[in-house]
């Protein structure tokens, strides 16, 4: 009897449904990790400065593009390392040129400056690399290599993205919790003046946070580029999803960003199963709005703490 009812629903065809379910799950995990790895970059600058850096997507694009360019001369690991270092330098320069000299800037003003920076980077990338689509080679195997469990297939690159994000989150967690530098950065975020009274250079901490998040963005750009490809304007769309996920998890919390990324990715994937694909982004934006209305501190955020924040 049970079998008959399944068969009447077009997608459930005998035993196939478990495998389909798993395949959608894998797709969702792929989306989710891409979003999460971008979201982490948002969190670092937010942690140090309280601003949302809308140029984060451009750091991701810059990392991917630079790595592709370097890879014509260098082996893959060196090209990625080079791209991360170059993007970090760009991050530092941006902070020094556009932000450092401002005296007691408002958070909103800084955030708007980052939007300008994003447009600037995008136009420079367009002039430098043109509109072409580029990609790094798959770290393991080729575009069609998959690891199969039964009829469920996953690209090894997805596992690379997952493991690199995981390592990144753990390192960041230790950095912010246990190292002096990390704690200085957090101190600046929670109270700039008090931190300065304790002898912490707030300006250096902000520069450092830009360097760090540029580096993380660039690394993210390198690991996701075989899956998503990279183009001068691919940063924007990645940033929107990354931003959604950062909000969803609770701004500033990288662990929560991973969880929120996976939740959003899996929800999107399953939405494609039951609804036309065109509605996929409706799901993402609806969730974002819902969270902003109902629980602005994010799913995993602390409600008390978020009341004290400016954003």
């Amino acid at each position, binding site marked *: 009897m049970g079998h008959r009812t399944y068969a009447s629903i*077009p*997608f459930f*065809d005998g035993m*196939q449904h478990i495998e*389909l379910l798993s*395949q*959608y799950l*894998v*797709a*969702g995990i*792929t*989306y989710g990790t*891409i979003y999460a790895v971008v979201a982490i970059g948002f969190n670092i600058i937010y942690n140090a400065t309280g601003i949302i850096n809308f140029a984060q997507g451009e750091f991701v694009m810059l990392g991917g593009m630079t790595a592709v360019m370097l890879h014509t001369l260098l082996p893959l690991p060196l090209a990625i390392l080079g791209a991360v270092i170059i993007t970090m330098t760009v991050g530092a320069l941006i902070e020094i040129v556009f932000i450092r000299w401002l005296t007691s800037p408002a958070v909103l003003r800084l955030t708007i400056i980052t939007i300008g920076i994003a447009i600037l980077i995008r136009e420079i990338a367009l002039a430098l690399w043109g509109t*072409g*689509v*580029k*990609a790094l*080679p798959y770290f393991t195997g*080729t*575009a*069609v290599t*998959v690891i*199969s469990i039964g*009829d469920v*297939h996953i*690209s090894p690159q997805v596992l690379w993205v997952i493991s690199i994000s995981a390592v990144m989150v753990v390192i960041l967690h230790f950095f912010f919790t246990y190292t002096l530098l990390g704690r200085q950065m957090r101190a600046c975020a929670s109270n700039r003046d008090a931190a300065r009274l304790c002898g912490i250079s707030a300006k250096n901490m902000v520069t450092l946070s830009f360097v760090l998040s540029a580096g993380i963005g660039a690394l993210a750009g390198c690991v*996701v580029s075989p*899956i*998503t*490809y990279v*183009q001068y304007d*691919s940063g*924007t*769309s*990645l940033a929107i999803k990354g931003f959604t996920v950062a909000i969803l998890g609770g701004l500033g919390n990288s662990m929560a960003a991973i969880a929120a990324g996976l939740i959003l990715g899996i929800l*999107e*994937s399953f939405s*494609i*199963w039951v609804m*036309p*694909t*065109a509605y*996929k*982004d409706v799901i993402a934006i609806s969730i974002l709005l819902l969270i902003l209305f109902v629980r602005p501190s994010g799913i995993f955020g602390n409600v008390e703490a978020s009341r004290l924040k400016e954003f």
Partner: protein
Amino acid sequence: MKIELIIKDSGASPEKAISFAKQLIEEDKVFAIIGPSTSGETMKIKGIAEESKMILISCAATEAIVNPVAKYVFKSPQNDSYAAIRIFEQMQTMGILKIGVLSSNTGFGKAGKEQIEKLAPQYGIQIVANEVYDKEATDLTAVVTKLKAAQVQAFINWSIEPAQAIVIKNARQIGLAVPIFQSHGFGNIQYVKAAGPAAEGVIFPAGRLLVVDTLPKDNQQKAVLVQYKKDYESRFKEDASTFGGHAYDAFMILVKAIEKAGPDKEKVRETIENMQGFIGTGGIFNFSPQDHNGLDINSFEMLTVKDGKFAVLAKQATKKKK
């Protein structure tokens, strides 16, 4: 006669295309406009060109640009309905009856989807899954999983974004081993490079520029194509694609008309409208007051990807698989 060229980069944005078109017409007072390259942009300025009696030779594909005919609007690329027809003819020879259709949410994707939906029943082909994705999609695994669940015998993807490389990669990753058809938007080797081994065997209609080396000597277009490819590649140091060819055709049609009719806008318009047998990179153009594109279905060749390169789809290949 000297032609002065004013170049505006509309970056595929319809808004920019509108403001540039107005600028060219009102401030620069140009003789004619070539482009834009996307259907969405062209449709937005079709009315503007017609109102200001400005000759517009678009480099975009959508049939709606020239159907209904606007007196001053022409286009050089082949109609997308021809692309859809060639695809369906190919499917018939391969015995394919149940297909999936994917398209991006752009002017090009939307127009292609409409043509496919309109023409499929005439070829006895049933669309069992029909999905539209965002043009900025970064991964389409879930979408191709849906095609797999619907047990399609083949699928058509209609887009010009990086997504057209992503989709074939994801399809092969999840083990969807059916024939994949793409639109003529696939005629740019960078997408083949991006998709790597996943691009092998993809079937799509395109102008003959991409396979000029393998054309027989007696092909009427061969000389034009060889010359264009050589000139383009020595100047720009990159592979020639059909898109540049469309702009070249548009320009040469205009030049030819001006040479014949002199620098008189009305006469040039009339000359283009009655131009016959012009050999371009996209095909052989025969314009008429009813047909402002001038190309027929034979301007498309069915191509495939073999060892990372474009090749004419071999006739035997049409019979293999079932």
